């Protein structure tokens, strides 16, 4: 049958979708039977260890691996010189000048950040590989490090990539509406000199890794890996390795957290591939925690400079202009896509129509930035939320009222933003009311007085975010018009096997999101069977034919792309089962048939029943005598393709993403003014991701994202010294939340189904950035009686709060208000 035929599916009395079905994944995981990347072993495999740069910026004058290669147990090495002869530089997403970056799998001639891999050593044991790595002799000629994006383009600053002619990587101007008119209409112009979104990432507990085998007979590599976006890795690796993508087979199973941080491991995977071929043995690489912190996928650090906000006296927001400055780190591994991804949420949740963002991305001698949960939207939404609270602070307005006055309303939905994105559904004001109720907003004045009586400063802050999901990759053309990417896709197959087993394969790479469970719920609802009868294969395998160019698990999309593919394939299968039954029952029309109880039957005479087992057996193993024209395989593949157009490159206008899940968080904190220490004493998170297939899994994502945000708001920071040394290269110095850090949490939800998706679902899981916004707002609120400092950085550890109490003008002076 064709994929476009429609199938009538009756809704079961009790659908599986919408229920908190226990996760299929759990049984293996609670018994330690998951298969994570470091769990895999192969006969005669070699352990890979990277020799890494101790310098942030230096020429490499010589490399000598002879002592390392002579070390007992060492199988061999790989240097940048070999990499440069065997591969081409990775394809660059950027237009010029970033397009000229020459990025190889190992450093070639120069190192550009501390921790950059220079040489790979492979040995019989992990210990031997590490020992031998210490015998590799590398001579350096150090260069001054560039560590502050604000000064990266100044005269006399060293150039990191000579081929780019400077440290500018990408620049673009986004402007929509009529800025002059907006500022002319304004009663006040609020000017904010500088806001800074800090550098951190989600530090998944499992680091990156791979086990790579090379088949000399076929020239094919099999990469068992925890890379979470194999489609992207393949298009980066294939051309660089001068290899067809059919030669790169990616296999994943259990992945110990990803959060976007496991998208850009392609350089290390190339090293594994080259060594598997060179040494003719399986190569095992597991990244060390310190190596992850030093080199892998930091979140985008962003400055917002010279911001001006046009506002009416009543708090009506008209527009803003700002200069965004992104610190990309040493290489553009996924960048400069961060320079456009933010535009999915250009106005935040507000109705202002006049916006100008002058966006620049520069290179620095820090670890490369790459996607991190909330990628690039989180930075921009933090900015819009900061603007709201700073405006409210400066104009002495109520932050709740300013939000409600400016929120896009439920009646505006679907709402087209100034840049052509379409917010699909949602009721932000209602969500805010729920969140405020959860923290008993009415009692805040009383609790503030109580805190004061105890010598504490109480503050309350709101964070509102949009978790835009299902990218239109056409937005990449706003970065580089030459790129030939657009739209999105995901694939699923669903089949009936010989004994009636329902087997599902996905193109996705789940890292804890429970895809095996939610996919089974969708299938069971359509086939009218139990979720226990649905077998969803764990992980991704490019041998399954269930993948496409954008397959993976990233950017809040599974509930839309993955489950829509599952729905499509299952509906095809349901139609085929009926066609088969129609033939078996001697030509009964398919309209007279229904699926029920693990089989297909005639509605009017339910005793005429063909179980799935019989269907599978007939097609697969007992098919003689079936009608010649019966076009049924019971093995159905469906590619879900969201309805996108290519955005207009000139006006930077178009729909960049399909769905907008929403989060409203409220934090209540108490600061000890003597020390700057604060506790989050009450916290509410309200989420709306449309139709929830499995509420428990959804709430788990909400909680986890919240915890990550609170860690980032208070502690987590990839801090560098002026020489480019990372000061937080492990979990001692980089403090992630522990059990004792967790505040009380109240959660709430609203379900506003998306009108644009087959199941009414929205992608979700990345909206935790709201926690950062809420904590920043709460700190600013608490400090009002102590000099009224403005919170200008997204990370506010206790010492910074203490400084703001000691010297409120230092931060407060960053803001001025002018009457227009």
């Amino acid at each position, binding site marked *: 049958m064709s994929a476009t035929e429609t199938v009538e599916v009756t809704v079961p009395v009790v659908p599986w979708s919408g229920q908190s079905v226990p996760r299929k994944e759990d049984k293996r995981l609670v018994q330690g039977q998951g298969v994570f990347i*470091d769990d895999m072993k192969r006969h005669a495999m070699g352990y890979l260890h990277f020799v890494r740069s101790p310098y942030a910026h230096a020429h490499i004058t010589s490399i000598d691996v002879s002592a390392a290669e002579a070390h007992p147990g060492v199988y061999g090495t790989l240097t940048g010189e070999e990499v440069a002869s065997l591969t081409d530089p990775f394809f660059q997403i950027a237009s010029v000048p970033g397009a000229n970056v020459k990025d190889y799998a190992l450093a070639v001639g120069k190192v550009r950040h501390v921790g950059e891999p220079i040489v790979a050593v492979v040995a019989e044991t992990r210990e031997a590989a590490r020992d031998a790595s210490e015998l590799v002799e590398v001579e350096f000629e150090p260069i001054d490090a560039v560590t502050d994006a604000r000064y990266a383009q100044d005269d006399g600053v060293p150039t990191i990539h000579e081929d780019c002619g400077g440290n500018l990587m990408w620049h673009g101007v986004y402007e929509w509406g009529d800025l002059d008119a907006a500022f002319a209409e304004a009663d006040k112009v609020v000017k904010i000199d500088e806001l800074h979104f800090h550098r951190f990432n989600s530090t998944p507990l499992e680091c990156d890794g791979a086990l790579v085998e090379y088949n000399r007979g076929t020239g094919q590599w099999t990469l068992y890996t925890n890379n979470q976006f194999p489609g992207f890795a393949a298009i980066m690796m294939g051309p660089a390795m001068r290899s067809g993508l059919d030669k790169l087979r990616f296999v994943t199973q259990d992945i110990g957290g990803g959060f976007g941080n496991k998208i850009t491991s392609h350089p290390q995977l190339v090293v594994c591939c080259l060594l598997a071929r060179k040494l003719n043995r399986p190569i095992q690489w597991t990244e060390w925690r310190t190596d992850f912190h030093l080199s892998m996928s930091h979140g985008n650090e962003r400055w917002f400079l010279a911001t001006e906000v046009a506002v009416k006296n009543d708090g009506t927001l008209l527009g803003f202009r700002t200069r965004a400055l992104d610190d990309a780190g040493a290489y553009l591994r996924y960048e400069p896509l961060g320079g456009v991804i933010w535009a999915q949420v250009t106005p935040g949740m507000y109705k202002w129509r006049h916006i100008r963002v002058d966006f620049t991305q520069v290179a620095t001698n820090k670890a490369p930035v790459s996607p991190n949960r909330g990628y690039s939207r989180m930075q921009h939404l933090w900015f819009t939320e900061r603007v709201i609270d700073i405006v409210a602070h400066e104009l002495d307005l109520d932050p709740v009222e300013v939000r409600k006055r400016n929120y896009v309303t439920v009646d505006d939905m679907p709402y087209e933003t100034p840049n052509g994105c379409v917010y699909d559904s949602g009721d932000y004001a209602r969500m805010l009311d729920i969140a405020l109720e959860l923290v008993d907003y009415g009692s805040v004045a009383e609790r503030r007085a109580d805190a004061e009586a105890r010598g504490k400063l109480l503050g309350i802050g709101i964070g509102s975010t949009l978790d835009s999901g299902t990218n239109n990759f056409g937005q990449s053309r706003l970065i580089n018009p030459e790129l030939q990417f657009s739209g999105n896709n995901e694939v699923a197959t669903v089949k009936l096997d010989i004994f009636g087993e329902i087997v599902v394969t996905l193109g996705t790479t789940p890292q804890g999101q429970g895809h095996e469970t939610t996919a089974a719920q969708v299938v069971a609802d359509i086939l009218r069977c139990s979720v226990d009868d649905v077998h969803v294969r764990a992980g991704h395998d490019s041998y399954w034919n269930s993948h496409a160019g954008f397959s993976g698990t990233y950017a809040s999309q599974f509930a839309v792309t993955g489950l829509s593919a599952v729905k499509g394939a299952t509906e095809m299968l349901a139609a085929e089962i009926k066609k088969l039954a129609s033939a078996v029952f001697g030509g009964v029309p398919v309209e007279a048939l229904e699926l029920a109880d693990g089989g297909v039957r005639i509605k009017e005479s339910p005793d005429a029943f063909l179980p799935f087992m019989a269907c599978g057996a007939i097609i697969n193993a007992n098919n003689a005598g079936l009608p010649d024209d019966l076009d049924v395989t019971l093995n159905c593949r469906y590619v879900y393709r969201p309805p996108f157009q290519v955005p207009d490159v000139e006006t930077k206008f178009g729909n960049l993403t399909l769905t907008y899940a929403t989060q409203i968080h409220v934090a209540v904190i108490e600061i000890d003014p003597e020390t700057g220490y604060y506790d989050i004493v009450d916290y509410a998170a309200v989420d709306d991701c449309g139709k929830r297939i499995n509420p428990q899994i959804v709430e788990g994502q909400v909680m986890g994202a919240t915890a990550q945000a609170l860690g980032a708001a208070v502690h987590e920071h990839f801090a560098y010294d002026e020489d480019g040394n990372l000061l937080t290269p492990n979990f001692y110095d980089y403090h992630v939340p522990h059990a004792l850090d*967790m505040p009380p949490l109240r959660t709430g939800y609203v379900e506003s189904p998306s009108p644009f998706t087959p199941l009414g679902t929205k992608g979700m899981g990345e909206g935790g950035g709201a926690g950062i916004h809420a904590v920043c707002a709460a700190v600013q609120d608490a400090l009002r009686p102590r000099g009224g400092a403005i919170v200008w950085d997204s990370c506010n550890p206790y010492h910074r709060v203490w400084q703001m109490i000691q010297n409120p003008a230092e931060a407060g002076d960053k803001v001025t208000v002018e009457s227009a």
Partner: protein
Amino acid sequence: MSVATGKTITVTINGETYERDVEARKLLIHFIRDDLDLTGSHIGCDTGNCGACSVIVDGVLVKSCMMLAVQADGATIETVEGLAEGDQLSKLQQSFSDMHALQCGYCTPGMLMSATALLRANPHPNDAEIRKALQGNICRCTGYWNIFEAVKAASE
């Protein structure tokens, strides 16, 4: 450069006794995972912070990356693989699933061992005692809230 020295050790893990030659410098977690192929216990850091490698050695909860394999000579060790009885999950394991106390499942084995040690020592811990007992185990997926609920439910 250190010269590897070795020793023959005997350990009993989840009721099975193993005798192996090990390098003196080998960490217990690497011995358990690499030499014995008991890969349920995990590694999430280089510094003893994350607790993914938590096991119970002679009745005491330890991070097995903070101990050498040779120090475990003669010891009786429990790992996550020994918690279930056949197909029957332990009350804690079942509770972790029921309460959605795991997402990626990477920290879960260590978390379960810490919680198992807690409930043996204190069958009915209060909320503060649960949090304190789990403070050495990092989870990046759940925010811990459901883990607290799971331990509490298993203690009732």
